[in-house]
């Protein structure tokens, strides 16, 4: 869909597969899954069979040995279908890399092949009810007791948890050590005593993606499930991955804008009001020109960010900039687009309406945009 020097013919073949899978397996079920507020468990297995999970993981661990652009292709195709509410990227592009990059050999062998096949669905548990974006302030404790850690605490806003067999839990192994006291534990949820899956929270958008509360009361996790095997590395492991995660969020925001502008231009060209095409009203045309400009600027910016990322120069500030700027513009542009659809823009079966509700999360998730500005501001 997108012109990019990084896409090879192989990516385009993959894109066709992804598109087919989305159109056949997902779109027809959208309404049912939205009602259920989650996709069925077996959907993940199908996605694994279709090669949509963990395309970037090394073949050694059951992946397809792909690259960043395989993840982008999936995200682009989801966006085209206005079906971003399936958290593939969380499973494949956020969690799998933690294990592949920081895990012990044993952890990689245990989890990655099953994550790629869809036998294991994964979630990551960072946010807590009282702490929001403040990772250093988390209260969930992991107390060492013999060859186990004992987990106590509470998490919220956890995506994928309803189906997850594996939850990566951020916990304090040393409550007095601040950032240095945070570790990541790999919790196998089947049969985990003391673990309770809380409510599946109802959200403004992203209806299919489940979002849950989690409770840990004396949950025993074997020490070999400490990610990487060394305590106190969690905060740094999380931090290191943030630029890439934010790049993906920016990419998603940009593609959302582009899809929205395309849909709106098409609508404005076909819809007639007051005796002429909507697009022939000057005020409408100027709004469309503004939206198109923002989307074009954003695309140029995204490509530059990708270049920097490839050159290994996309740092924390760059990630923060990309994330806040694109998600803000995305919400503005889509709100303007929705307006041009009139009453249809408020109906859930119009893609623009779903986009509008879905993208609102972008300004909040992954660290609120205020946190991004703080991060940039401190480095000025």
């Amino acid at each position: 869909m997108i012109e990019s020097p990084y896409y090879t013919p192989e990516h385009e073949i993959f894109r066709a597969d992804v598109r087919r899978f989305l159109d056949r397996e997902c779109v027809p079920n959208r309404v049912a899954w939205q009602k259920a507020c989650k996709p069925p468990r077996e959907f993940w297995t199908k996605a694994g069979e279709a090669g949509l999970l963990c395309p970037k993981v090394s073949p050694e661990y059951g992946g397809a040995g792909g690259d960043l652009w395989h993840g982008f292709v999936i995200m682009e195709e989801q966006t085209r279908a206005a079906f971003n509410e399936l958290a593939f990227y969380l499973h494949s592009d956020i969690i799998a890399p933690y294990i592949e990059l920081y895990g012990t050999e044993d952890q990689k062998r245990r989890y990655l092949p099953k994550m790629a096949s869809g036998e294991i669905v994964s979630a990551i548990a960072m946010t807590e009810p009282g702490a929001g974006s403040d990772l250093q302030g988390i209260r969930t404790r992991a107390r060492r007791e013999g060859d186990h850690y004992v987990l106590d605490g509470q998490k919220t806003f956890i995506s994928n948890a309803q189906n997850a067999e594996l939850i990566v839990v951020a916990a304090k192994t040393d409550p007095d050590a601040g950032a240095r006291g945070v570790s990541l534990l790999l919790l196998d949820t089947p049969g985990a005593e003391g673990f309770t899956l809380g409510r599946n929270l109802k959200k403004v958008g992203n209806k299919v993606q489940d979002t849950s509360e989690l409770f840990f009361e004396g949950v025993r996790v074997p020490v070999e499930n400490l990610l990487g095997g060394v305590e106190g590395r969690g905060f740094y492991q999380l931090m290191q991955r943030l630029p890439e995660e934010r790049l993906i969020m920016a990419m998603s925001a940009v593609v959302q804008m582009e899809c929205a502008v395309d849909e709106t231009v098409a609508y404005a060209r076909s819809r007639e009001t007051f005796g002429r095409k909507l697009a022939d009203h000057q005020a409408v045309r100027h709004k469309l020109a503004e939206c198109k400009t923002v989307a074009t600027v954003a695309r140029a910016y995204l490509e530059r960010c990708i270049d920097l990322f490839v050159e290994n120069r996309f740092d924390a500030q760059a990630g923060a900039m990309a994330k806040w700027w694109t998600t803000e513009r995305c919400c503005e542009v889509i709100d303007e687009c929705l307006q041009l659809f009139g009453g249809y823009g408020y109906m859930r079966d119009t893609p623009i309406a779903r986009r509008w509700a879905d993208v609102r999360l972008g300004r909040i998730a992954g660290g609120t945009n205020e946190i991004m500005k703080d991060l940039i501001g401190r480095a000025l």
Partner: protein
Amino acid sequence: MNTHPSAPGLSPATSLPFRDDHEMLRQTARRFFETECAPHREAWDEAGMVPRAIWRRAGELGLLCPRIDPAYGGAGGDLLHAIVLTEEQVKAGVVAPMISLHNDVVAPYLVAYGSEAQKARALPRMATGEWLGAIAMTEPSAGSDLRGMKTRARRDGDDYVISGQKTFISHGATADLIVLAAQAEAGISLFLVETDGLAGFSRGAPLDKMGQFSADTAEIFFDEVRLPASALLGGEEGRGFAQLGERLVEERLMTGVVAQAFMETAIDHTVAYTRERKAFGQRIIDFQNSRFRLAEARTEAVVCRTFLERCVTKFMAGRLDASEAAMLKWWSTEQQNRIVDACVQLHGGYGYMLEYPIARMWLDSRVAKIYGGANEIMKDIIGRAL
């Protein structure tokens, strides 16, 4: 609405001349919305509509059509009664039952243009909640462009025969009485459609909207529907466009009332939330950015209230013109959406969760920039009058 006793300088008390009877209605309404509606909001949202019984209950309490003549079951009230009801409904976070649609949009057509027989038949039923009202203007192909409507009313002997389709009709799935706009020979005309057992009339399923879930909205269809000539509102053909135009000023004024109540309620929720929640070791309200954003929102709401109240005062004196009503409509709904959006942001992740009122308010607000004439139409109206 004597709000914010805690911060008197920030939100000057209303300058509107509320009397004791308005305050009594406010108390009744507040109890009704808070205890009999708000607890059911989630269930009603799931159902996509409210149970009929709640309308009867609202009727019993005197919340329906308080402005109409006591002879027809009303209380002879004024615009301030309508404002009181709307403010309390919004403050309680309740979008349906759509009392203002029923009271302030539909009933006035009968009061203003109905014959004695039409009034005597419909108004008492509306005041008790026996009949739910709706108004059907918009069509799939025309949107805000009323002159482009295609629904026809063909005269056939003593009857009119109606064919056509309407969409985005609030109460479309439930209304007993629909004020219908259709093209008759002499031009756009309004008809009173009693839906019960009406041959050729059908309704679509409630539309799946992005917010206001419990407020049912549907398409309605007329396939050679036969109405008696007495269904013509006011008894004269071709007056519809003018009648709709006359009513729009008041409708847009009420949109401003809703928008204002949304802003103030959203800010109240958010001040409370940011005072209570902590992040990075301090209360959210203690961050300068939060404080500035809330200071802006509070100021914008205060400014908007003064404009609203000026419009209300002018309206009650018969001096509010179409241009000023259009200003109020676009400006207040724009501010509403901006403020509610900023309030969502200050809630962080909770702002995206439907169990927090601010999340539903965000979804409920968006349509305000579209309905009652899209905001672009408002700017056209103002621009042409310059």
